């Protein structure tokens, strides 16, 4: 009896491993195929997000803010990264880097910026996230699922919750900050501009926006950006920042 038990057990084991190995080498569904379908989803998700939150693409000539953002985007263009910049009419003081190389700037954070240089720092930080590919596909998957499951107003709340809660790690934030510093220096903008913005935001933190999130320690970040002496930037813009802000 014991022998037969062992024999049965071995049969089961061999069947299991055999089937596993068989399907690994003769796949019913090829994993590459699945991945391709998955990448197509990225586009779909992007379109759905734009529709859901009514993101407005920078560069279009329709409003002052979109023109201004378009100008900043050109200033911050990267050779090896094609990204799209969007404006979101949300009062929340936040900006996001989203999968699919999207950067979304909320009205809330624009109102906090006293100068376009501060906003350039914010955008540069978000570009840093995109450039270093900080987005795990996790966010994409969660977003995709949420967007596909339902299509109504209840989704908007859920999705924005996912967006605001998706925090990057301490290392990622540091990398994005370092990228922003590098980028600002290239444009002859003192990184101290970002320190100014951070300090203003720090005073009103009822909540912590993505790029001021608590991981790397807000104070550390402020002192990092403050360590650069403040110099008035000599960049010229075709728009009047105050007028742009007043138009919102």
């Amino acid at each position, binding site marked *: *009896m014991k022998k*037969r*038990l062992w024999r*049965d*057990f071995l*049969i*089961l084991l061999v069947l*299991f491993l055999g*089937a*596993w*190995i*068989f*399907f*690994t*080498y003769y*796949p*019913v*569904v*090829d*994993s590459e195929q*699945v*991945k391709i379908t*998955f990448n197509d989803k990225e586009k779909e998700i992007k379109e759905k997000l734009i529709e859901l939150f009514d993101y407005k693409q920078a560069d279009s000539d329709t409003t002052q803010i979109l023109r201004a953002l378009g100008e900043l985007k050109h200033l911050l263009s990267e050779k090896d990264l094609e990204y799209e910049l969007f404006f979101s009419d949300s009062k929340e003081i936040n900006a996001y880097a989203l999968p699919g190389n999207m950067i979304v700037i909320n009205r809330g954070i624009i109102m906090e910026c006293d100068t376009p240089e501060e906003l350039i720092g914010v955008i540069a930080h978000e570009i840093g996230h995109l450039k270093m590919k900080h987005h*795990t*596909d*996790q966010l994409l*998957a*969660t977003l995709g699922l949420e967007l596909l499951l339902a299509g109504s107003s209840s989704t908007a709340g859920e999705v924005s919750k996912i967006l605001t809660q998706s925090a990057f790690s301490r290392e990622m934030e540091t990398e994005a900050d370092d990228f922003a510093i590098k980028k600002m220096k290239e444009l002859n903008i003192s990184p101290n501009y970002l320190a100014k913005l951070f300090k203003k935001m720090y005073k009103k933190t009822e909540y912590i926006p993505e790029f001021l999130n608590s991981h790397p320690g807000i104070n550390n970040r402020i002192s990092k950006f403050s360590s650069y002496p403040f110099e008035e930037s000599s960049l010229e813009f075709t728009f009047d920042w105050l007028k742009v802000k007043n138009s919102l």
Partner: protein
Amino acid sequence: MSTEYYQIQQPEDLPAREREDAMGAYFMMFASLAAGLPLPIINLIAAIIYYHVNKHKSRFVRFHSLQSLLSQLPVSLLNAGLVVWAISFFKYDFNFDNTFLAYLIVVLMANLLYLGFSIVAAIKARKGLMYYFIFFGKLSYEIIYKIKEEEEHIYRNNPPI
């Protein structure tokens, strides 16, 4: 010394109540398997409880409960493995490959087989019949029907008739 086994009950010796309890063991396992899908702990606990509840019933009921319990163990483990593996994608990256997809297929097949055989076993149990799964059937029979040494001793110490 040859091992001895308790006699297997025949359908006509089994009251409807016992046959239903035996059948229930399989249906209970499906339910708990579905409920405990993400975490196999839930269904394992349910299975063990059911087995214990039936501990004092006839060997026929105990056999079916145990066979159902034992056969769902590997299925639960495979499902748990699938969940852990899938979660690792969310944590890190979606670099799943054919090895994972093959595992997914095999686990699905294992679940279907388990489901199919359990349904057959449940129907047989309702009719008062034994039904042996590969491996688990023999193992359950061995555990439930084998006469253990100590039990034999107690048995031999019966008062004179």
